[in-house]
């Protein structure tokens, strides 16, 4: 099984500069992500509007012409020749993942697969000077969160106890 990866925006780090959006659009298609400035609603979900490459994508379920498909690598990709531009996917996606070009054809984040094949991170991630956008895999992210929490709690516990429970000594 390939590890499923997705984009994660750390709202604490994002200052809404928009470099990621510019970098995405520079690839020659309408920007496939949007970011709401973290100042407006810090820490809330939904700061990042972009495809999450769902395992059971609502966009693909509703697409009448089976234009959207989950690839074996877990990445949800459109087959443009099948798109009739009905926008049902846009309405179905709760996370703002669908984007339409000037011809009315569906497009969406492909995690910059092509760049990835050449060993580069997605353009948006590379453009983010604040390190707010990251490509993470689902499993490791929770492990990281847990460690960060433990760190936080550890510090808290130590503070609470006035320097830790034990006085240790040794060589």
């Amino acid at each position: 099984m390939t590890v499923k990866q997705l984009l994660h925006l750390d709202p604490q780090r994002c200052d809404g500069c928009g470099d990621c959006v510019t970098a995405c659009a520079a690839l020659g298609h309408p920007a496939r992500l949007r970011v709401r400035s973290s100042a407006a609603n810090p820490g809330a979900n939904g700061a990042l509007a972009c495809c999450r490459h769902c395992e059971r994508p609502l966009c693909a379920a509703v697409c009448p012409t089976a234009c959207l498909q989950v690839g074996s690598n877990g990445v949800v990709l459109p087959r443009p020749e099948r798109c009739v531009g009905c926008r049902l996917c846009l309405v179905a996606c709760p996370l703002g993942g669908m984007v339409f070009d000037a011809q009315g054809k569906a497009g969406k984040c492909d995690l910059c697969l092509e760049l990835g094949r050449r060993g580069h991170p997605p353009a948006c991630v590379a453009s983010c000077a604040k390190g707010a956008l990251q490509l993470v895999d689902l499993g490791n992210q929770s492990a990281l969160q847990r460690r960060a929490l433990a760190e936080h709690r550890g510090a808290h516990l130590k503070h609470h106890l006035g320097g830790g429970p034990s006085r240790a000594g040794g060589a």
Partner: protein
Amino acid sequence: MREEIMMAAGETMLLIDQSRCVGCHACETACKMENNVPPGPRWMEVVEHESVDAAGDVALSFLPLNCRHCADAPCIAVCPTQALARDGLGLVRLERERCIGCGECLFVCPFGAPQFGEDRLMQKCHGCRERRARNLPTACAQYCPSGALRCATPRELSHLVRTSRAALGAARAD
């Protein structure tokens, strides 16, 4: 010094006493065996944290981290398909057939509780709902050797906490 986090399910609650945890992982193993969770997802995970003060003394803290079935659960708030909901027992219930695997819950959960396995859909601690309905403690609590995890009625747990505090008070007064 202890920190109590409780999750309620009908009659009983789970007391998580961080100060008693020694990081033996018995709860994790019990959870995996009870729920037949293959390697990968960890509904319960004990995380160890090491800190060193200016004097060079090392302090360890251990955190048993599972789904805390939060009262104001951010995962429920962000789940775009209502796959997560609060059930009649007060637990955060996951309806897996509704899950689309978008990962939103993971990013808002302060405990890293949402897990993703082979099928890439979310899975997590269900609070041993069925065991508790049969008057059994949660699997993690049943096999916790240090008393860091205890599953009992709120009355029993409050009595437990009060008596241990009272003993401590009496000992200090001596």
